[in-house]
């Protein structure tokens, strides 16, 4: 690993060892395993993948935020101890962030992918779709653990911190989509396609949803705006813009979290 300093690597290894032994992490992987397996048993692979997408968009942000918040609360005194060592804050931040995010992402991938491997669906198109779903799930994990760092930096009280994390999940994973739909219906007579596109770029979960549903060619499920999205995101340019936006959604909270982490008192 030349990308990170040896100190960061050491912290990541230590955190991996700790988080990797967590029962919650196994429960998380088992959850996706059971859901994916059940969906495959009781429906076709196509349907299973579609349902798994909904579950992923709902659960991955929730678990990343809640697990991340609990992890950071628990790591508070340990963070203090590590900062008393010859370790720079940037190194510790990177170490904690990767040590939290990598096991979560790995648990999701393992839980969601193993049933598909076991049931042996030899369909290349479906495999690519599964790959996209896994990539999007991993990206969402990186986005929302970073947001957990941001919440931890700005909210001092333990209970309010958890409340803020859950509220953030409610807004991004549940309410935002509904509000955009209401807006689309209310303003159906106006040319608001561009605004809707902009709004979609403004929420990582919506962005992920649009990317995945278009990938599965079920944009009809998204109602009348589906056509607009199809037009926009279907093309190479659309995909490039959407991917860039999602990448920005990783770097923005990570940078914001780092800034706050460097200024914080422990």
């Amino acid at each position, binding site marked *: 690993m030349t990308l990170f*300093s*040896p*100190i960061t690597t*050491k*912290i990541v*290894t*230590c*955190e991996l*060892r*700790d*988080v*990797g*032994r*967590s029962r919650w992490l196994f429960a998380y992987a088992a959850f996706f395993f059971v859901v994916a397996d059940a969906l495959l048993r009781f429906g076709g692979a196509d349907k299973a993948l579609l349902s798994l997408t909904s579950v992923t968009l709902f659960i991955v942000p929730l678990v990343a935020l809640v697990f991340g918040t609990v992890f950071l609360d*628990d*790591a*508070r*005194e*340990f963070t*203090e*101890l*590590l*900062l*008393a*060592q*010859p*370790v*720079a804050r940037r190194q510790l931040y990177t170490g904690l962030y990767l040590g939290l995010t990598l096991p979560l992402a790995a648990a999701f991938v393992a839980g969601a992918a193993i049933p598909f491997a076991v049931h042996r669906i030899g369909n290349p198109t479906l495999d690519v779709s599964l790959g996209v779903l896994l990539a999007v799930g991993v990206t969402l994990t990186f986005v929302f653990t970073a947001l957990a760092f941001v919440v931890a930096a700005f909210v001092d009280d333990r209970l309010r911190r958890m409340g803020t994390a859950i509220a953030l999940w409610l807004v991004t994973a549940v309410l935002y989509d509904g509000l955009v739909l209401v807006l689309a219906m209310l303003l159906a007579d106006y040319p608001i396609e561009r605004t809707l596109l902009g709004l979609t770029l403004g929420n990582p979960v919506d962005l992920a949803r649009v990317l995945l549903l278009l990938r599965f060619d079920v944009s009809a499920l998204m109602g009348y705006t589906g056509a607009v999205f199809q037009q926009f995101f279907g093309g190479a340019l659309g995909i490039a813009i959407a991917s860039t936006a999602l990448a920005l959604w990783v770097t923005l909270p990570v940078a914001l979290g780092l800034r706050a982490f460097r*200024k914080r*008192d*422990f």
Partner: protein
Amino acid sequence: MITISGLEKRYGAQHVLRGVNVEVGRGSVTAVVGPNGAGKTTLIKAILGLVQPDAGAIRVDDLLVGEDCSYRARIGYMPQIARYPHNLTARELLTMLTELRKAAPNAGPMRRDESLIAQLGLTGQLDKPLRALSGGTRQKVNAVAAFLFSPDLLILDEPTAGLDPAASEVLKDRILAERAAGRTVIVTSHFMSELEELATDVVFLLEGTVRYAGPLDELLRRTRKANLGRAISHLMLEAAAA
């Protein structure tokens, strides 16, 4: 060894440190005393760079705290509360700290001193997950970690709180041995008799200001009191009367 000048810290409306100036000499054992909320822990954490002051400067051997982190390679720190990642064992924790120090930029040769492990009776506990250990045992692990690298400067925040009497004595003996070896120690405690045994110097903080900073015997002479506890309560009464 440490020069603190004009240190200011506010937490919101709370003015925790109000222009603190302290000089800590090499080879001294400085007791930081004061009532709860006087700013003792904040002052200690500022030296470690854990708390970032609003104004003022701290130098550790001419290195400005906050600029780079290499000075911390020479510090052993024992925090007040001992909580670690739940699923790690004490051995893994100590190994990790060792590797961190080895990986630090311009890390010198390392002298690892594990004698406290046996003295505190931790030998059989090293491979249990830290969450399975009692609070006092974790505090012992904390002590081992602070003394592990034979640091020039030891910063101990309430080191004997939560320790059983036997372990407290072991730790006190160790601090005295460090003092005899010419190491610098900064220690807080609510037990004045304990500090009197250990300290050469006293810093008395009250509401974020330094009310006394200097040698212990001079404090006793000035207040004409028989021990540190009485001298400090005398200073507090004096402050309340003023």
